[in-house]
């Protein structure tokens, strides 16, 4: 019951925080539509995807995933603010323990991603031919995409020590994950190195799964997409749990801390000793 209550508390808090950050919320909803309008419409005139699919129809699953990816990952990475302002330490000192803290944060971030991706997905009938059944399957695929994005976001946040790195992470992590995923152009046309990167990029499988769900041809089988995403989630959760342990005892973090910042070693931001 302790862990359950902690998870409910963390989810409730994160969702309350998200709904009160209206500009961030608005940006998360508007961003994918801007991409659809600017990139989709522009490329629609010059690009034809193999199989005769119009570009805007090809890119739509990718934009749905993009909305979920940004929503979930940014919410998860915002954990770095909690580290900076002492809230993470509060959570880590609770009887619930690290797994409950991570589960709560992952559920909240995934819900944000699911809602943001879901808003774009709701426009599917305007963009691609889709049946109600396919739409339902796409919601399921989107939930998995949002959950795996949330866990990847937590993994990134586990190594971030200050909010100053936040913008850099968006450029260095989020955009490459999106661009090298088959969301905006087929991976088949990529140079070998990028293609290899796309193969090990979990977002590739998120896009592929949503593409399958919406009745488009995917690059991999649905089974492979599911296995890769579930394995990604399990390994991201396990690794993040180790990294989030205040002492990072399995990764040699304890001996690297300075005595001037014992609170930093204990899961908080910089503080006097």
């Amino acid at each position: 019951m302790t862990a359950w209550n902690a998870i409910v508390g963390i989810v409730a808090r994160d969702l309350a925080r998200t709904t009160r950050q209206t500009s961030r919320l608005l940006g998360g909803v508007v961003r994918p539509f801007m991409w659809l309008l600017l990139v989709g419409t522009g490329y629609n005139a010059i690009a034809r995807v193999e199989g005769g699919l119009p570009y805007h129809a090809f890119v739509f699953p990718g934009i749905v995933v993009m909305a979920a990816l940004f929503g979930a990952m940014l919410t998860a990475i915002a954990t770095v603010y909690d580290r900076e302002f002492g809230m993470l330490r509060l959570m880590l000192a609770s009887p619930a323990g690290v797994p409950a803290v991570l589960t709560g944060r992952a559920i909240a971030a995934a819900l944000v991603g699911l809602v943001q991706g879901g808003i774009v997905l709701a426009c599917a009938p305007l963009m691609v031919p889709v049946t109600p059944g396919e739409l339902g399957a796409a919601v399921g695929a989107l939930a998995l995409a949002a959950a795996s994005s949330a866990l990847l976001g937590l993994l990134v946040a586990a190594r971030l020590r200050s909010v100053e790195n936040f913008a850099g992470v968006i450029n260095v992590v989020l955009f490459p994950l999106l661009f090298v995923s088959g969301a905006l152009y087929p991976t088949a046309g990529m140079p070998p190195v990028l293609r290899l990167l796309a193969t090990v990029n979990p977002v590739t499988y998120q896009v592929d799964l949503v593409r399958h769900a919406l009745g488009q041809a995917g690059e991999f089988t649905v089974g492979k997409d599911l296995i890769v995403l579930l394995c990604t989630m399990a390994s991201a959760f396990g690794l993040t749990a180790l990294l989030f342990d205040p002492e990072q005892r399995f990764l040699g973090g304890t001996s690297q801390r300075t005595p001037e910042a014992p609170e930093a070693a204990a899961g908080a931001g910089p503080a006097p000793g």
Partner: protein
Amino acid sequence: MSGSTPAAIVTEGLGRDYGSVRALDALDLDVPAGALVGLLGPNGAGKTTAMLLLATLLRPTRGNARILGHHVVGARGSVRRALGLVFQETSVDGLLTVEENLRFAARLAGLGGGRMRDAVAGAIERAGLGPRSGQPARQLSGGWRRLLDIARATLHRPDVLILDEPTVGLDPEHRELIWTILATERRERRVTILFSTHYLAEAEPADRVVLLSRGRVVADDAPAALRAGVGAEVAEIEGPGAERLVRALRGLGAVATVLRTERGYRVGISREREAVMELSLAAAGIERLQLRPASLEDVYFARTRGAGA
């Protein structure tokens, strides 16, 4: 430890290194239930490290510690359930209201449903946060934020409170409010409190004071005993003739401790008060002479800077 009731806090040689630096050498504590213990010392003395070790947020490099009989490494969950923590910096979410912050903390403590609602309502009432319960926490003053922290730390009614500088930066009114809440917790529920502070007067009512310096315990006793060790009274002596007078007082055999300060000397007087006064008043080159009761501040300076008897 006595009988069937375990001591609230026990540490045996508890220490912590950061790389090659020894932040806390070896802390030995045996704190009975209901005690108020002050952890004093300069910045970097190891106070926060000791508290984080007890809070299970750091692992000891050496030694061990138990809270109400639960080992801080082997039984972290039980230790955390028994503890209420206030960290050096406030742990308040500015985007949530006061009540939402407390609901969040209650759920983290494992409370849900009616127990959570009762705990939050009780904490709000005890801390006097009622009129502010619907206010976003970012709108609170520093004092009320700290009271929110105290309300958060006590809402699940823990048996042991660990408070790292709970009143730092607060005005006297809010400091008074916080100590009143803590005194009530002790009186009504026999809560054990381990706190650190730089306001040494706050440690005067403590049952025991542990003074740390550079990771080592340099004094550990009741405040009265510590003050007595400095001298029954302390003479503050300033002026060009101060050094000569201190030598003369030493010759009188009345000096317990001598501390050189920026402006002169603080001399702990153990006996011969009348003779000391006579000698001091007759001394030349003394610009300021004040004889006053010894305080914990005198103990602090004598033990952390080093004193000669």
